């Protein structure tokens, strides 16, 4: 047993790694630009000076978020593409430079060209004197500069640069010459060979995954992208509501389900058995969100006569749960309807499982033996039958722990309960990936933990189970 436990816990670590990689990977491919949220969009059509101010702000925010770091401990890039490309803030700039690099190679020259072109557009913008070239001409030039992504764009740029007439007195002369020579250099340079050859870079611990996972393990989940609040501070109160909701509903689920299942296995009344069984089956097929919607439509309003208005409405639940003491009886009474919905839907499942496993034991010899010994029916049932029958249900408890966390997204959304499920739902719609990743990681860890616990309980409950 000890050996088994040790092995399971050792297996836990790679599984955790897989989960964290998966969650992190999902976080990386989520749509939307997180920097843009905080720093604002860098727009092309704004004035050049403003553009640069925005760009600088964007770059700073991006570096603060660590997005200029490589994604993982190592990276594989084609030889043409330089890893320095990561430092360039805007996605569209990175993309066009990358395609230029893939075309001709010489990444350091291309980055130099990008630097010169940025400087060029900045100095032309800052220049207080009337523009030396015509503003229209300059605008066309700048636009072309921002859209250069292959060699034909470069030659077009060259043509434009040659067309512009810059007099000797103009203080921008130097910039123009520099840009022209850079463009010419790129156009004349010979294409490098072996551009697509893969190169492996080792990034050390200075990478995004390492940053994310180490700060997450230290308890810092980052800040919510929606309201800038710390993710941990959002999760803990949400956890509280989910916990109270789940604990009660799970308790109720087993309290209804197990006796009912056992009763079905024991009783000999065919009619009653059939009725209950069909009812349970129907309940099991009933989608939870339908049950909850029907409950909220029919039982929380006066629309269908005041006598059906039994339960508090969902807005009241929201107010009560956020203001009232979270474990008080008052809060509990407000949560009655959601708890009942969850419990009914779970109880049907538990009862079916219980009945099935009890029926499997029904005709075993040890039960006849117990009856033959003269034990009373009740004693046979509770002392011998039930403990053996309950045993397969332990695996069910594995599902309990993660559900504690996810609560029921559906229930929390329908009844406006500010729990984890609701938080998950909200953060998906708000594209709040930091919160989402934290919830996902938590959910994954708890799922695995639940399975581990179930295996251990299984072993405890039945000494026959051997793990080698």
């Amino acid at each position: 047993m000890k050996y088994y436990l040790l092995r399971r816990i050792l297996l836990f670590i790679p599984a955790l790694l897989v989960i964290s990689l998966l969650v992190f990977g999902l976080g990386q491919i989520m749509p939307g630009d997180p920097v843009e949220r905080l720093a604002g969009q860098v727009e092309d059509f704004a004035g050049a000076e403003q553009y640069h101010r925005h760009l600088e702000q964007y770059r700073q925010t991006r570096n603060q978020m660590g997005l200029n770091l490589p994604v993982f401990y190592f990276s594989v890039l084609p030889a043409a593409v330089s890893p320095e490309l990561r430092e360039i803030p805007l996605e569209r700039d990175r993309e066009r430079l990358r395609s230029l690099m893939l075309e001709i190679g010489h990444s350091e020259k291309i980055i130099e060209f990008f630097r010169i072109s940025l400087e060029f557009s900045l100095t032309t913008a800052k220049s207080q004197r009337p523009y030396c070239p015509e503003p229209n001409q300059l605008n066309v030039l700048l636009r072309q500069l921002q859209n250069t992504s292959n060699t034909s764009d470069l030659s077009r740029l060259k043509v434009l640069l040659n067309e512009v007439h810059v007099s000797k007195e103009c203080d921008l002369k130097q910039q123009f010459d520099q840009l022209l020579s850079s463009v010419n250099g790129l156009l004349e340079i010979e294409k490098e060979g072996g551009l697509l050859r893969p190169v492996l870079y080792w990034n050390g611990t200075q990478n995004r995954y390492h940053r994310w996972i180490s700060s997450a393990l230290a308890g810092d989940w980052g800040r919510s992208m929606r309201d800038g609040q710390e993710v941990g501070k959002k999760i803990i109160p949400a956890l509280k509501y989910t916990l109270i909701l789940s604990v009660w509903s799970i308790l109720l689920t087993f309290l209804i389900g197990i006796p009912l299942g056992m009763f079905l296995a024991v009783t000999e009344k065919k009619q009653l058995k059939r009725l209950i069984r069909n009812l349970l089956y129907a309940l099991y097929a009933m989608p939870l969100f339908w049950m909850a919607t029907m409950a909220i439509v029919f039982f929380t309003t006066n629309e269908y006569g005041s006598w059906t208005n039994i339960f508090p409405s969902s807005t009241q639940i929201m107010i009560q749960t956020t203001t009232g003491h979270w474990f008080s009886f008052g809060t509990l009474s407000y949560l009655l309807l959601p708890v009942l919905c969850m419990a009914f839907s779970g109880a049907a499942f538990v009862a079916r499982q219980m009945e099935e496993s009890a029926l499997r034991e029904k005709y075993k010899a040890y039960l006849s033996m117990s009856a033959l010994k003269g034990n009373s029916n009740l004693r046979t049932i509770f002392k011998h039958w039930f403990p053996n029958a309950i045993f397969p249900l332990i695996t069910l408890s594995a599902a309990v722990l993660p559900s504690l966390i996810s609560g029921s997204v559906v229930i929390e959304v329908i009844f406006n309960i500010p729990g984890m499920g609701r938080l998950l739902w909200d953060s998906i719609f708000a594209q709040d990936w930091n919160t989402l990743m934290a919830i996902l990681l938590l959910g994954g860890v708890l799922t695995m933990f639940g399975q581990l616990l179930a295996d251990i309980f299984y072993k405890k409950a039945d000494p026959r189970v051997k793990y080698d």
Partner: protein
Amino acid sequence: MIDAIKTKNLRKADFSVFSPKSIPLWIRLVLFVWIFAAVFADQLANELPLSCKIDGKRHYPAIAESIAKIRGDASVRLKYRGNIDRMESIVMAPIPYSPQTIDRNNTGFVSPFEDQHINDWKQRHWLGTDRLGRDIMAGMIHGARVAFVVGMLAVFFAFIIGVPLGAAAGYYGDRGIFVRGLVLLLKTLLLLTWLYLLYLQLMGAAISGLLVWLPFLLVVFLPFLIRKSRLSLLINRLPGFLSRTFSIPLDLILLRLIEVFRSLPNLFILLALLAVFGQTGMTTIALILALLMWPTFARYTRAEFLSLREKEFVSAARLFRKSEFRIIFTDILPNAKAPLIVISAFGISAAILAESTLSFLGLGLGIDQVSWGSMLSEARRYFPAWWMAVFPGFAIFIIIYALNSLGDRLR
């Protein structure tokens, strides 16, 4: 004698278990109505007439629309709607509304029982309307189609992923496939090359699609090439690791993979994937659901193959030099179909439940797709409209009930 060994007889015997007569009438009825509504949704509920005359020529707009939908052409509706006042001798569909049709006279949640602003009993909204004045009955019928397509596709995809994997793992076990060191090395390198080329293509490098897939094709055909060119004789002479034979622990790999998938928080992954993809079409949803469902199919197939591979008819088929591919797919698989049919029934119901839950949460299909789940979510906005809560929910419920009962009965 050969005929007696062939599995044909067994196959026949297998089907008798699933004869329609053993299924209760109500299940057959529910499934029939559902599938009928799904297939003929465009003819049952459509604002375009089933048949009409334009300039003396007979047209069948509702049928033409169905055919155009399959071809991915959306212009038919617009074309006929432009001609609506020139139509003569019109035969309307039983429900003269499409799910998107807005009846301006009956907006703002009209109950099925109250007086509706209609000219003719044929135009009645039998199940009421929603806030915008869309017919609930039409939505129900077209929602049947969404449920049907998503359920079937999800199980289909899960089947394609899970069954071959489970079959291979169960049939070959841990010591069934042997590979020479050289081949293993080559295959690994080729696969890595393939992945790298895909990555390059994603980056925007100019490589032809054929070149990208070449390493993959090579991996598939490598054993064949080696056998044909008698390279194996050469491989035998290679030193050390290259000529050694390795067995691939297929079964172990699959079991570990299933374990990983089992330990994932399914609902979370589902929601996260949908957050990545945004509101999508039915195929994407089905694919995502299949991604979560395939381990079940793989597990059951593996268990069946594990026991069936020891049976006499398999040894007999081997005796007759049938190829392993044919043994797996024409001998063992037909005998393993009983549990697969059962989990397919449960799988369809699970997929429908998942899809409707997601649509209910506003994360599933796009806004233009009417789903039972999305109709139900409207009911939360306006409590007096009980018909919006009752009917779509009941449809989901009865289909899931029927499919679960069917699965249970077949078990």
